[in-house]
C-alpha cells in the first residue's frame, strides 16, 4: 500500500508542472510560436518563388538546411545512443536525465528531416522516392535508416512513458476529462502488476539495445552521404565514426543545457543535482577530447599529404573562413576541454557554459565541412556572379532554421505538460530497489 500512497504523492508533487502555466512560460510559448510563424512565412515564400530565395546556387547546392539536418538528426541519434546506454547498464543516476534524453531524441528526429525536405527542389514529387526507389543511392539508405530509427525511437520512448501514464491515470481525478481519457488510452491497461512490470522491463531493455544499434547504423549512413562522394573535404574513411563522436558531442551538450534550463525554470534542484552535471561534464570531456582528436586527424592528414585539391580546400578554410575555423576547431574544443579537465573549474554554470561553446563550435564545424568543400570543387569556379562563388545564407534560411529550434523548444515544453520530466515510475523503482538493498547510494 505504501507504493500506492507514494505514487499519489509523486503525482501531486509533479502535477503543478503539468497543469499550471506561469506568466513567463506563456510569454515564452508566445515568443516561440511567433518565431515558428515567421518560419512558416519564409517557407511559403520559398515554395512560391522557388529555391532562388535561398543563398544556394550551382556550386554550393546544400547550405544551412543540410547542416541543420545533420545537426538535428545526429542529436537524435546521440540521444538514442545515450538513452540506450543509460537504460541498458542501469546507470545509477540515470532517472533524472533519461526522460530529457528521450524527448530530445524523438523531437530532433522529427525536426531534422524537415530540413532535408526544405532542400528538395520538387517537394511535390517527394513520393517518387517510394515510387521509383533506387537502392544503390545513399539517400535511399538514409531514408530507410531514418524511418526505422524514428519508429524504433517512438516505440522506445512510448515504452518508457507507459508506467507514468498509468500513474497519472490512477491519480488525476481532478484533472480535466480529456486528460483523464488521454492517460487512460495511453496507459494501455498497465496496472504495474509484477508480471506486467517484468515484461515491460524486458521489452524496454531489448529496445534500448536495438536503439543503440539503430543509431550507429543511421549515423554511418548519414556520414556516407558525404564521404561516398569524390569531394575533397568529404571523401574520408573516418567520417562515419567522426559523425558518431560529433553527434555525441552535440547530444551531451544539449542534454546539459536542457538539464540546466529545466532545473532552473521548474525548480527541480532536488532531482537534477550537481552530481548529474559533474557526471555529464566528465562524459563531455571525454567526448570533446575524442572529437578534437578526430578533427585533428582529419585535417592533419589532408594537410600533410597535401594533394592539390586538399590544399585548395585548406586554403579556403584558412583564408576566407579563418576565424570560423579557429572558433569551430580550436575554441569549440579547447575551451570545453580546459573547463572540464580541472576539477575545480567544474561547477553547474561552467559545465553548462562549456556545453554552449561545444554546441556552437560543433555547428560551425559542420558548416565548415559542408560549405567550403562545395566552394572549392575540382574544377575551379570561374564565375562573375558573387552568389555563385560564395554562399551566404539568406533570411529565409535563417528564419526557417530558427523556426526549427523554436519548434524543438516548444514541443519540449508541451511534452513536459503532458508527462512529468522526471519519470515518476523511475523514482518508485529506485525506492523499491533501495528498500531491498539499503546499502546502495541514495543517488537518483
Amino acid at each position, binding site marked *: 500500500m505504501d507504493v500506492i500512497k507514494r505514487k499519489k504523492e509523486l503525482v501531486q508533487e509533479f502535477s503543478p508542472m503539468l497543469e499550471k502555466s506561469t506568466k513567463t512560460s506563456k510569454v515564452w510559448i508566445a515568443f516561440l510560436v511567433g518565431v515558428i510563424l515567421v518560419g512558416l512565412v519564409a517557407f511559403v515564400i520559398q515554395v512560391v*518563388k*522557388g*529555391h*532562388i*530565395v*535561398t543563398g*544556394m*546556387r*550551382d*556550386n554550393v*547546392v*546544400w547550405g544551412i538546411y543540410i547542416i541543420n539536418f545533420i545537426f538535428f538528426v545526429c542529436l537524435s541519434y546521440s540521444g538514442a545512443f545515450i538513452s540506450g546506454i543509460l537504460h541498458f547498464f542501469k546507470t545509477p543516476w540515470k532517472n533524472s536525465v533519461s526522460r530529457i534524453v528521450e524527448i530530445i531524441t524523438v523531437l530532433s528526429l522529427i525536426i531534422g528531416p524537415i530540413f532535408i525536405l526544405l*532542400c*528538395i*527542389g*520538387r517537394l511535390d*514529387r*517527394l513520393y*517518387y*522516392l517510394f*515510387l*521509383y*526507389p*533506387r537502392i*544503390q*543511392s*545513399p*539517400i*535511399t539508405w538514409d*531514408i530507410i535508416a531514418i524511418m526505422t530509427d524514428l519508429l524504433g525511437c517512438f516505440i522506445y520512448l512510448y515504452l518508457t512513458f507507459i508506467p507514468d501514464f498509468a500513474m497519472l491515470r490512477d491519480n488525476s481525478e481532478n484533472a480535466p476529462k480529456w486528460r483523464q481519457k488521454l492517460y487512460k488510452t495511453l496507459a494501455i491497461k498497465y496496472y504495474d502488476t509484477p508480471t506486467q512490470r517484468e515484461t515491460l522491463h524486458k521489452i524496454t531493455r531489448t529496445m534500448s539495445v536495438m536503439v543503440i544499434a539503430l543509431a550507429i547504423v543511421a549515423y554511418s549512413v548519414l556520414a556516407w*552521404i558525404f564521404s*561516398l*562522394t*569524390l*569531394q575533397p573535404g568529404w571523401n574520408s574513411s573516418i567520417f562515419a565514426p567522426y559523425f558518431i563522436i560529433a553527434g555525441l558531442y552535440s547530444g551531451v551538450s544539449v542534454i546539459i543545457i536542457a538539464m540546466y534550463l529545466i532545473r532552473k525554470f521548474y525548480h527541480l534542484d532536488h532531482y537534477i543535482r550537481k552530481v548529474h552535471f559533474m557526471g555529464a561534464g566528465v562524459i563531455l570531456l571525454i567526448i570533446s577530447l575524442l572529437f578534437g582528436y578526430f578533427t585533428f586527424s582529419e585535417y592533419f592528414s589532408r594537410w600533410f599529404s597535401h594533394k592539390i585539391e586538399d590544399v585548395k580546400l585548406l586554403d579556403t578554410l584558412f583564408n576566407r573562413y579563418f576565424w570560423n575555423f579557429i572558433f569551430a576547431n580550436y575554441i569549440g574544443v579547447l575551451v570545453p576541454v580546459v573547463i572540464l579537465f580541472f576539477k575545480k573549474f567544474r561547477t553547474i554554470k561552467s559545465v553548462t557554459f562549456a556545453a554552449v561553446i561545444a554546441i556552437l563550435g560543433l555547428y560551425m564545424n559542420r558548416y565548415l565541412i559542408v560549405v567550403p568543400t*562545395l566552394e572549392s*570543387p*575540382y*574544377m*575551379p*569556379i*570561374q*564565375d*562573375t*556572379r558573387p552568389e*555563385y562563388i560564395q554562399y551566404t545564407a539568406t533570411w529565409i534560411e535563417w528564419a526557417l532554421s530558427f523556426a526549427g529550434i523554436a519548434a524543438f523548444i516548444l514541443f519540449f515544453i508541451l511534452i513536459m505538460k503532458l508527462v512529468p520530466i522526471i519519470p515518476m515510475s523511475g523514482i518508485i523503482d529506485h525506492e523499491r530497489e533501495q528498500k531491498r538493498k539499503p546499502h546502495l547510494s541514495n543517488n537518483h
Partner: protein
Amino acid sequence: MANKKTENGSENRRNFLRLGLMSSVSAVAGASLISNLATGEEKKASGEKVRVLTPDGKMVEVDAESINNYPEAVITPEESRKGIPDKKFVMVIDLSKCKNARKCVEGCQKAHKLDDHQEFMKVQLMQNNEEGSPYWLPKPCFHCDEPPCVTVCPTGATFKRDDGIVLIDNERCIGCKFCITSCPYSARTFNWGHKEKFDDKSQPYSPETQVPAAEGTVMKCDFCPDMLRQGKLPYCASSCPMGVIYFGDKNEDIVTNGTETVSFSQLIKDRGGYRHLEHLGTKPNVYYLPAVNRQFPVERGFDVDEEILDRYKDVPIVKEFKEQGKL
C-alpha cells in the same frame, strides 16, 4: 545486320541509327566519304539500296529504310532511356585549337534555350601550375562510364544509356541535388527559380532536348541526342569555327569535327589524348588532346566581353597581363 527487332512499327524511326553516325559524317564531310546519301531526306520504299563507306574504307550497300525517316520525332522520357542502338558516343576536344571563341557555348545555349550564364559547355582557363602554360578548356559533361551522379540518384531520374550518354529526366527529378555534389566536374546546373520559358509547352518535353526545362530540377550537357538521331553533330561541335570539338562513335572508331573525319583511336594515339582528372576513376567519354603546337596564343581568348574576362581574374596569367597593362 543486327537489330531486327527494331524493324517494325513505331520503332521505325530508330532504324536509321545503326548508320546514323555515318550519315552524319556524310552531312558534314560530303561526298569524299560517303556517296549517294543525303541525310534525313530519304523517303524511299523499302528495298532501295544506298551505298555508304565504312570507317575502315569499305563500301557497303544498305537498305534506304535504315536511314532516318523521322528525324523530327519526339523521344519520350521512356524511350530516351534506351539509347541509340550499337553506338558508343565519344568526344575529343583539341585544346591546341581552342581560342575561347565561345561559339560552342552560344550554340549550345541557343539550342537548349539556356539563359546567359547557364552553360552546359563551359570554357575554363586552366593553368596547371605556376610554370605551366595556360590553356583554354572547353568542358561539357564527360558522360562517364562510371558516373557518380547516376549512382547516387535516389529516383533514377538521371541514367546511363547503352550508347554511353548520361541524361536527366526532369519529370522524374525530385531536385535533391545529390548528383550535383557528387559530380567532380561541376557539370550540372539547377533551375533555382521559375522562368517564363518553362511554361512554353509548344515543344513536348524530351530528356534528349531538355526543353522545356522545369523549376527545381537538374540540367546538364546531353551530347544532343536529338541531333545524333538526325545524323548531325552536337551543337557545340558544329558551332565551333576552329573545329576544336570532334564527335563520333567508339564502336566504329570514328570521330569528326565537321571538316575532318579521323580514326578515334589513331587520333588519341598520335596526339597523346588524355582524360581530365583520370585518377578519379569515373572513366569519362570526353578526351582531350593536349595544347601543344598551338594555332593561337592563349591571349587570343581574352578578346571577349569584360564580364566574361572577369571570370578568369584569379588565373596567374590574367593577373600578370593586368599588371603589365595588356588587358
